[in-house]
């Protein structure tokens, strides 16, 4: 107040009556906007190009998966999990299989566990390829995106050889895999392991020390570790803030405890750190796949599922020639497996965080209640806090680095 009177001394009072005019603009970013990479709406209150506050609308592609799951036998729910985070469907599939196996107390052979690790790490790479290359697109570098998407196609070729599908995979079954992997699969994986590092090194070279990219991402969309934990961040976004929480290490599943790998962490939790953590994870995933392939070789060949005839579908040849196999075939297809009464929570490290399955079984053929802990549904609510005060173009970059997948967000 004191200062004000000093400043206004000697100036014509009429000129400074009132305050400078402030006018806010409301901007709808989304629901279908090329820069949002999915169907989310953000209603932004803007002062020029600066974001003052924002309001999110989600649920545009809600498909009632939790309700549908209450009406489906366990093995038919796998296809629902495909459509959660469709950038890394195999991880969701495996997570669901493991949840049911935990409920039914099925022992999975080591070879199958290692095969699952290979699948999950391949799909983690595919997921991170998308996130990081699209971040490049949003900062104006389209070349890298087109270049590394070829590699994602190669991963999908591997999935196709295993299960016949590419994007929504429905890969594997409760108890293992539906059939032994063809020899071609191992050849394709070996080829990928040989060729991909070179490509990814080039991609990193384009962006990691790129002045334009660094200026666009460092200090943009940052969040502190404390806030991130309060907002329930998990996965790469949490690790970018410096917290080394990884489900694969904290609650190992599918024999992850036998593998040697590092957890890349960031420091500031900004867009650049998230990019670097995802890059680091790709290299770690490659290491894990290499170890898993070596471990598979040491296990007895040809084992691709658990010895649990009441849960695992028998071979067609046996179904036609063997009474017991025929009975089991019918029972399993109709969903009549003996599920105990109980509750299971099982979490896996998904592409973008802790993907949890909370399954309540009343002993029936369908779950009594199934809840998906979807990581990006939980951390996406921090988005307004992360972008408030920043520029519109920063908001776009922040969203794409958060790896928010609409299918998972809306379930």
């Amino acid at each position, binding site marked *: 107040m004191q200062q004000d009177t000093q400043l206004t001394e000697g100036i014509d009072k009429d000129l400074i009556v009132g305050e400078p005019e402030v006018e806010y603009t409301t901007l709808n970013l989304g629901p279908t906007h090329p820069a949002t990479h999915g169907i989310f709406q953000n209603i932004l209150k803007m002062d020029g190009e600066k974001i003052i506050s924002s309001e999110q609308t989600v649920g545009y592609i809600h498909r009632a998966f939790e309700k549908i799951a209450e009406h489906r036998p366990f093995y038919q729910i796998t296809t629902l999990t495909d459509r959660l985070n469709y950038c890394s469907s195999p991880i969701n599939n495996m997570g669901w299989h493991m949840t049911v196996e935990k409920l039914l107390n099925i022992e999975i052979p080591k070879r199958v566990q290692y095969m699952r690790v290979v699948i999950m790490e391949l799909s983690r790479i595919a997921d991170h390829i998308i996130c990081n290359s699209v971040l490049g697109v949003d900062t104006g570098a389209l070349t890298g995106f087109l270049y590394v998407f070829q590699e994602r196609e190669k991963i999908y070729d591997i999935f196709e050889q295993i299960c016949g599908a590419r994007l929504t995979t429905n890969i594997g079954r409760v108890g293992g895999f539906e059939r032994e992997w063809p020899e071609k699969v191992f050849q394709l994986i070996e080829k990928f392991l040989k060729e991909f590092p070179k490509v990814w090194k080039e991609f990193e070279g384009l962006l990691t020390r790129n002045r334009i990219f660094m200026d666009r991402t460092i200090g943009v969309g940052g969040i502190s570790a404390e806030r991130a934990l309060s907002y329930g961040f998990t996965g790469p976004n949490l690790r970018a803030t410096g917290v080394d929480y990884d489900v694969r290490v904290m609650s190992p599943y599918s024999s992850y405890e036998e593998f040697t790998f590092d957890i890349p962490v960031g420091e500031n939790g900004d867009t650049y750190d998230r990019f670097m953590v995802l890059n680091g994870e790709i290299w770690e995933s490659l290491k894990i796949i290499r170890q898993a392939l070596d471990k598979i070789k040491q296990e007895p060949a040809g084992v691709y599922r658990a010895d649990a005839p009441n849960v695992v579908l028998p071979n067609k040849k046996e179904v036609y020639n063997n009474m017991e196999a025929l009975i089991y075939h019918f029972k399993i297809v109709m969903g009549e497996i003996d599920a105990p009464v109980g509750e299971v*929570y099982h979490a896996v490290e998904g592409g973008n965080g802790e993907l949890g399955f909370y399954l309540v079984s009343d002993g029936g053929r369908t779950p009594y209640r199934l809840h998906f802990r979807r990581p990006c549904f939980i951390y996406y*609510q921090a988005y307004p806090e992360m972008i408030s005060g920043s520029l519109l173009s920063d908001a776009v970059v922040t969203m794409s680095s958060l790896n928010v997948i609409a299918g998972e967000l809306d379930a």
Partner: protein
Amino acid sequence: MTILENNTVLEKLKDKFGAYIISSEEQYGMLSVTADSAFNIDILKFLWEDKDLEFRFLTDICGIHYPDSPQPFGVIYHLHSFKYNVRLRLKFFLAEDQSISTATVMYASANWMERETYDFFGITFAGHPNLKRILNMDELTVFPMRKQYPLEDPNRVDKKDHYFGR
């Protein structure tokens, strides 16, 4: 790292809250505690503050509906103590028209989780800053995850559950 046993967690909770702990069980390695719904925030606060527990990460909140029970609605919290790497499940059951205190006072993440629970089960969280529908459309008049609502349109003749053995 010292190992925190599920029994220790349970004993500490029983020491502090005594009769308000209704039941407990351990399934597949995870302790599950059912308690009086009036004390949910007190229990969460105690679990956060106690130096030997430090359950400071809210993994998940979800609802459940048991239509035949006198307290048909359940709110289920999954907590994780990063320090001791122990998970814990807390359950609170509510009668129809009863509400439960919001956890948004402790966890920013509880905001949308509670909105989702409200959206699907109609469970109200007292003190929630913005309790409105999140995934379903605003015009919806029912809470679709309640058990009385069938999945399929009941007027369809080709999709009766009994044809499919359900």
